[in-house]
């Protein structure tokens, strides 16, 4: 299949631009100009240069030998965790800040959950000398103090959001309100494949460098495409980036891993695909967790980056069309996944990434399978959670 956005911003039944009139001119300006701007040669040269020499691309595709032995296949790790700022988020913020400059914007706003997108936005704003305001839920500010400090050191203003569940969804609401109040000079750098059209498509394009490199690296290594690509899904940007160039390759199985929290039916999860129903959230028609009265439900995951009740419209479409298989991993299994990767391969992953790693043990592979796992981020920011969760047993083997 092909994943193409139509002229109204829809992927199948999902997407669109459900924004109040106050944002219509901003969103329309982006819709009309993002393709033209991002396909300019000069834009692409600048983007590639920054990805290479500022962010550190291409990232390696590492053959994880001990995991390969354990799971009876070839496990390959796409090392987005090695990028500057420690996660894939920087791919998108570099793209969007270059776009914002060409649109003549002078101020940047962003939302953040775990703080990775906030740090990646603060970083490119420092690089370009642009003022930056990051909205972050009060709860997340407490559990991600290190990233708050990084953003402040980089010169960004971190605004605490105290409405609703005080997490990512509320930070997104607050950033949209800021954009409504400051439509002229401000660009909103959304951190995932969510929001009104063109954000999902635009962010997916900026993140697609992940699968472009993967494809090339797999072909160079084996002369063949991988058989599986596995990535974690919150809003879904690293997964969209990792899937992008394989969507039209039916031989490649694509697997999105979402956060089951305490368990899919525990009432404390972020398993959007499993539990979500169609509706309108944050400017697009998509799947999200909601009550029978259409109120958005609060998500739970041990990982702040997956703690979002919705999912990007492309993923909703890829799920309904059956192209991507979505599975759920609990907090407990994710912690185990983090330990497995740390002990077997010497890589401490972000909690988000640990969900994707954890799923490996639940699959059965053929010896000829070549499985790429997107290691979307590194685990430094989650050390507090790991210390608390493992306690004295942190050095025990798994």
């Amino acid at each position: 299949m092909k994943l193409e956005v139509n002229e109204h911003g829809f992927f199948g039944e999902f997407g669109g631009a459900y924004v109040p009139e106050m944002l219509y001119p901003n969103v329309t300006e982006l819709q009309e100009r993002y393709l033209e701007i991002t396909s300019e040669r000069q834009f692409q040269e600048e983007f590639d240069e920054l990805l290479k020499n500022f962010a550190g691309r291409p990232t390696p595709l590492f053959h994880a030998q001990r995991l390969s032995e354990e799971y009876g296949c070839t496990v390959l790790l796409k090392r987005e965790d090695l990028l500057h700022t420690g996660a894939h988020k920087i791919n998108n913020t570099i793209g969007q800040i270059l776009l914002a400059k060409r649109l003549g914007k002078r101020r940047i706003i962003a939302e953040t959950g775990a703080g990775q997108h906030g740090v990646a936005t603060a970083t490119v704003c420092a690089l370009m000398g642009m003022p930056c305001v990051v909205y972050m839920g009060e709860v997340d500010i407490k559990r991600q103090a290190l990233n708050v400090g990084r953003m402040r050191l980089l010169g960004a203003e971190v605004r605490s959001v105290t409405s609703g569940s005080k997490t990512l969804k509320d930070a997104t609401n607050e950033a949209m309100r800021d954009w409504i109040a400051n439509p002229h000079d401000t660009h909103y750098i959304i951190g995932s494949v969510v929001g009104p059209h063109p954000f999902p498509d635009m962010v997916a394009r900026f993140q697609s460098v992940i699968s472009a490199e993967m494809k090339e690296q797999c072909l160079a290594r084996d002369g063949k495409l991988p058989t599986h690509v596995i990535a974690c899904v919150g809003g879904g940007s690293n997964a969209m980036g990792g899937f992008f160039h394989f969507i039209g390759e039916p031989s490649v199985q694509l697997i999105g891993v979402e956060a089951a929290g305490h368990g899919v039916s525990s009432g404390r999860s972020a398993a959007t695909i499993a539990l979500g129903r169609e509706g309108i959230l944050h400017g697009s028609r998509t799947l999200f967790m909601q009550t029978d009265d259409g109120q958005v439900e609060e998500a739970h995951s041990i990982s702040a980056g997956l703690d979002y009740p919705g999912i990007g419209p492309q993923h909703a479409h890829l799920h309904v069309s059956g192209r991507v298989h979505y599975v759920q991993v609990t907090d407990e299994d994710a912690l185990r996944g983090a330990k497995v990767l740390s002990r077997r391969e010497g890589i401490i992953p972000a909690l988000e990434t640990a969900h994707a790693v954890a799923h490996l043990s639940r699959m059965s592979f053929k010896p000829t399978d070549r499985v790429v796992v997107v290691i979307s981020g590194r685990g430094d920011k989650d050390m507090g959670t790991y210390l608390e969760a493992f306690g004295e047993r942190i050095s025990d083997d798994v």
Partner: protein
Amino acid sequence: MTCSRFEQLPQRNALTVFYTAGYPRLNDTLPILSALQASEVNMVEIGFPFSDPVADGPTIQASNHVSLENGMTVATLFEQLKPLRSGEITVPILLMGSLNPIERYGRQRFFEDAAHCGVDGLIIPDMPFEEYLARYKPLYQQHAIKPVFLITSRTDDARIKAFDAEGPAFLYVVSTDAVTGGTTNVTEERDAFFKRLADMKLSSRLFVGFGVSDRQSFEAVTKHTAGAIIGSAFVRALRDAPQGASSHESDRPALEKIVSDFVKQVR
């Protein structure tokens, strides 16, 4: 159905008041409405709550939250509004809220129930105009409920004319298109916008909302338009009144006093 209740609106200085259903207490929805009519408010906008109201400021967000905590749902609202037109309420009534609760309740069912209760108009700020044309326009027409479209100083003429051609209850002029911290002269920019609107010779009434809170702002904007909508300031009055949110029982005389005191401050 008899002729539209919007026709009873005065040509000038029409006052519309917005409040959130189920706030401060679940069963205050109708008593507040009666009190507003008794205070000679010309039109009433009732908000149905949403957990994530992106286009609302802190006061109305908080009222949405309290209303949901009180147990308000779309179904409950229609239950409350059922006796609306069998009593003394003759003022035009609009519902306003986010698209998602409507879609979850069922589009068709929402319009049927709203029409059955005697609702005259429905404002859905996050509904794109294309969605209106494709999916909602037939429902509005079928149930004789009027749409309302928001416009700002950045909405171009062609778009405003397209809204106007749909025969809305009115065009909702968003007055505070944010110039926070800027050097732009707010009054000048606003007057230029009103002049542009006047030059377009629109057939729809104009009502100004967002940022209208007292007599001064009401008089300033109604120089150019048919009327204005006051929302946050009224919700604040309900919130801050000693007999308001603090009491658990619906106290009609107290509510009536809050409402009439508030309306007297404006007009």
